[in-house]
């Protein structure tokens, strides 16, 4: 096995610039949506006093969770010593930074007072998990940038293992923090569960890797660099494992709630759609999160007949859709279910939408802002691989696989 040689993308092709322009357009519409919402106030969205976090938060939390998951390939190589993933570690770190930047951009631009974001970094309430998250996000940027630097600067290569370990521990804490944003909420039946934190960590493995797979295949196909079949097979199996683990955590979360009488209401709301006229969360859960985001990708990954890139890319794309569905059910479904202020009572009259399932459907500006965040993340990656030596010149199996053996010519 040779030492991988990293090289910038040439990035002069029509396709490369077209990609940047398309992503730029999405970023521009996202910013336009932000300016509109900021100028008019949030009443122009479908968010209200019932559904206080809407589609922007679905995208933002998904991107933030995926960011920590995207770092996995780097962690597996540096912390767990899997040599075959080592050439991909810089891209893994870059993608992690980019996804976090995209997610945070959406989160900040949806604030009621986005111009006060500096206050969020100067006034801290240390009992707030949100405040901790602000520190964790900023720390993640700093640590992963240092980690990336150690990997890219030959003199510091020896320290990259240590930086990688630190980044790995930090990302575990970071996703614990993200899951706990919901886990620590005592008021709402759908949240208030310690399992939220580990569930988010396991889900992050799948979401991050799914995005990573697509980015790797796209970058190597479009730049006509070699990408080995053995590496792809490993990435594919890893994704399968992560999807299965995620499904297990989702099952445990729901089984616990089904067992506890107090939570029967919210469970039948999400799983059976009771009380929900359009049964929207039931559909998004079963079709989006479980079928599209879990079962179909597993079949695509493990079906013996399928081995190619297409099935893997399809599986990865479905995992992303499933991830967005999961966030939709968790964030919006969790708020749509009414608060239990008066256990044992039903609310028959209220001017403030008490006791009823809260209606919500994404508005255009919200979706544009969310997609703008995705575009920011991808734009950063596409730009960075042109100006920085992130991508190995070749990912052919003979270059990177320690167990590679030349095919013997038939005797």
């Amino acid at each position, binding site marked *: 096995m040779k030492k991988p040689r990293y090289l910038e993308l040439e990035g002069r092709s029509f396709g490369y610039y077209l990609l940047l322009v398309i992503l730029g357009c999405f970023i521009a519409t996202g910013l336009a949506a932000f300016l509109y919402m900021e100028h008019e106030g949030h009443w122009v969205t479908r968010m209200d006093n019932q559904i206080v976090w809407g589609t922007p938060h679905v995208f933002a939390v998904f991107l933030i969770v995926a960011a920590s998951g995207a770092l996995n390939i780097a962690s597996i190589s540096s912390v767990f010593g899997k040599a075959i993933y080592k050439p991909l570690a810089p891209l893994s770190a870059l993608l992690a930074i980019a996804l976090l930047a995209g997610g945070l951009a959406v989160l900040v631009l949806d604030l009621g007072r986005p111009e006060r974001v500096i206050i*969020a970094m100067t*006034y801290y*309430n240390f009992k707030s998990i*949100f405040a901790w998250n602000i520190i964790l996000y900023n720390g993640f940027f700093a640590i992963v940038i240092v980690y990336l630097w150690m990997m890219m600067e030959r003199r510091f290569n020896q320290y990259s293992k240590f930086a990688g370990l630190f980044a790995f521990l930090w990302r575990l804490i970071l996703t614990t923090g993200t899951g706990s944003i919901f886990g620590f909420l005592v008021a709402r039946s759908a949240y208030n569960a310690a399992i939220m934190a580990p569930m988010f960590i396991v889900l992050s493995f799948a979401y991050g890797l799914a995005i990573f797979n697509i980015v790797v295949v796209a970058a190597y196909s479009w730049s006509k660099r070699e990408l080995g079949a053995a590496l792809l097979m490993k990435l594919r199996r890893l994704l399968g494992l992560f999807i299965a683990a995620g499904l297990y955590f989702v099952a445990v979360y729901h089984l616990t709630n089904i067992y506890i009488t107090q939570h029967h209401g919210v469970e039948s709301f999400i799983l059976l759609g009771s009380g929900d006229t359009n049964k929207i969360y039931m559909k998004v859960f079963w079709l989006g999160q479980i079928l599209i985001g879990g079962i179909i990708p597993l079949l695509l990954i493990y079906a013996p007949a399928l081995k190619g890139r297409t099935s893997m890319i399809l599986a990865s794309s479905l995992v992303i859709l499933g991830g967005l569905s999961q966030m939709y059910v968790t964030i919006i479904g969790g708020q749509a279910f009414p608060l239990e202020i008066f256990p044992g009572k039903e609310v028959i009259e209220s001017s403030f939408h008490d006791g009823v399932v809260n209606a919500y459907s994404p508005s255009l500006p919200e979706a544009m802002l969310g997609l703008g965040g995705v575009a920011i993340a991808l734009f950063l990656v596409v730009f960075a691989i042109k100006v920085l030596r992130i991508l190995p010149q070749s990912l052919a199996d003979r270059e990177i696989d320690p167990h590679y053996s030349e095919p013997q010519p038939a005797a």
Partner: protein
Amino acid sequence: MSDDQAINRDRRQFFGMTAAMASLAVAPGVFLSQVKSARAVATQAASDQNRWGMLIDTSKCASGCNDCVTACNKENGISGIHGTATDAQWIRKVTLRDKLTGYVQSLPLLCQHCENPPCVDVCPTGASMKRADGIVLVDKHICIGCRYCMMACPYKARSFIHEVLDEQKAVAPRGKGTVESCTMCVQRVDANRGEEDKTKHRDPACVEACNNNGHKAMWFGDLKDPNSEIVAELQKHGGQQLRPDLQLNTGVRYQGIN
């Protein structure tokens, strides 16, 4: 912190002295005219010797009566703008029916001014805060509009301002992009603290309206004052919390939820 407070105290005394000296030195008429127009003011900070609370007797609360809500809106300058989904509501009327017995009752629901408020716990900047005297407020100067407090509140007591506001009341600053909730008419609570004459003390607008209109379903007072009317009533007839299982020790208590 204590150093800061000491400095602030010195500063206040200095300002006070300066103002007093200046007023002696200059034409007394000007100063007098100011004193005449001045309302009662609170020179002392809110103290943890008090805990302001409310008691609501649901049996006296008539279904269909909205007097408390109207009074609150008037006092704090709250009005409907884009519909009930996005409009602010500091206090609202809720009608309940017991799932088992079918018993129907009506009550006002507002910020419960918890001793351990979840909204204060989760606020990243400390904008959501509880005063020494138990009143839970939002410091809109440092509220970033993240709405996490609205996710955390078990009573849905908070509203986000979804649009540019106009013609706010001087006593109740409120504006786009920040979260707000019932302040227990903190402007009145503070004015009471500066007013020696107890007959001039004013209850929060909702309680005042409920009593003035003869319903007498609401009490306001100091839960730490053994001689207060509200404590006497609580000792006599009790008063329960909403969601007592959360152990938030709410400052607003209810009678007759059954």
